[in-house]
């Protein structure tokens, strides 16, 4: 791959007032090969992965894709509070972003999602107005309930480590009970609405198989290692169901979770190559 050309990204707000969504558009270098809509991950994972998402958007733009990064309702620089976020409203944001891209590009349309963003992209693809030609998944969350548990634990961080103190707050089960009773929770600076938690609770990647081809990137901790068992099983289940899914593994730190900003050129190159190859066949 050639070094990405330094193309300036356009920052703008899509929509008005409470519907204002912050967007970064990376115009394609040369003739356009397709449009890509990026779907960011949940809460703190969005901040930690910002650098890798920006680098990938630039690399894809240099390879001839028009890439739109949209901050969902209550996230990043968009309007609204995180506590107002709902799964359905985030899907509407994706629809608005997709419409914007489709007005500019009539080539192949690709959804690219990281972690929970991958599940949001897959769920959106099932009822998208515009056909989705390919999906790029970055380390997708497999089960929304497990992702929710991991998020809820942030509120219990101190208590869980204090020996014998695990029942003080009723643990993650106690927090779930509060959500089910309709209470919003403040977790690591994010207000989590019970409606959003309920939506996460039922999400499962296996039930969200798209009609289009899938390129799926998973991190491994040493070269040549197999993907984590859960991901490998889910991808195999899709393959058995006739979905054209390619699982790519790259030695890479989990950049959406690392304490310091992580950059991994091999991961970026693998993503660009997978997408280019996929659309070349298209």
């Amino acid at each position, binding site marked *: 791959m050639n070094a990405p050309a330094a193309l300036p990204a356009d920052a703008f707000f899509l929509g008005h007032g409470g519907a204002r969504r912050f967007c970064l558009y990376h115009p394609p270098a040369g003739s356009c090969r397709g449009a890509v809509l990026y779907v960011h991950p949940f809460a703190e994972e969005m901040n930690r992965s910002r650098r890798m998402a920006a680098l990938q958007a630039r690399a894809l733009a240099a390879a001839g894709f028009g890439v739109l990064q949209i901050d969902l309702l209550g996230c990043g620089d968009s309007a609204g509070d995180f506590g107002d976020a709902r799964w359905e409203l985030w899907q509407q944001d994706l629809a608005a972003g997709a419409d914007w891209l489709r007005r500019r590009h009539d080539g192949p349309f690709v959804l690219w999602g990281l972690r929970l963003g991958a599940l949001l992209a897959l769920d959106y693809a099932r009822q998208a107005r515009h056909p989705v030609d390919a999906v790029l998944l970055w380390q997708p969350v497999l089960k929304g309930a*497990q992702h929710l548990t991991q998020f809820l*634990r942030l509120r219990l*961080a*101190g208590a*869980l*480590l204090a020996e014998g103190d695990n029942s003080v707050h009723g643990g993650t089960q106690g927090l779930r009970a509060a959500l089910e009773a309709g209470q919003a929770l403040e977790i690591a600076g994010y207000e989590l609405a019970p409606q959003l938690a309920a939506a996460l609770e039922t999400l499962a990647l296996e039930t969200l198989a798209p009609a289009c081809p899938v390129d799926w990137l998973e991190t491994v*901790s040493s070269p040549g290692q197999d993907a984590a068992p*859960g991901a490998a099983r889910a991808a195999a289940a899709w393959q058995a169901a006739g979905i054209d899914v390619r699982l790519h593994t790259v030695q890479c730190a989990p950049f959406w*979770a690392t304490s310091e900003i992580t950059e991994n050129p091999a991961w970026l190159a693998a993503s660009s190559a997978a997408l280019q190859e996929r659309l070349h066949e298209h």
Partner: protein
Amino acid sequence: MYLDETKTILIDVLSLGENGRHLDADSPLLGALPELDSMAVIGLIAALEEHFDIAIDDDDISASTFASLGSLADFVAAKRAA
């Protein structure tokens, strides 16, 4: 057998870099690694759950699990066997 993979995940998640390479089974973690605060522990648990395809309950999470790299790897091994 889970020691090396657990060590790699610990180094990656806490961004320990070169300093992490010297860790062995006896290396103390909680209270010894400044990077491993309570929030980092939660992030590490999530990474271990996903990498090893294990489910960790609230009751499993205690300071003794994170006492040393060896105790953490043993915990992963026990969860994998469960």
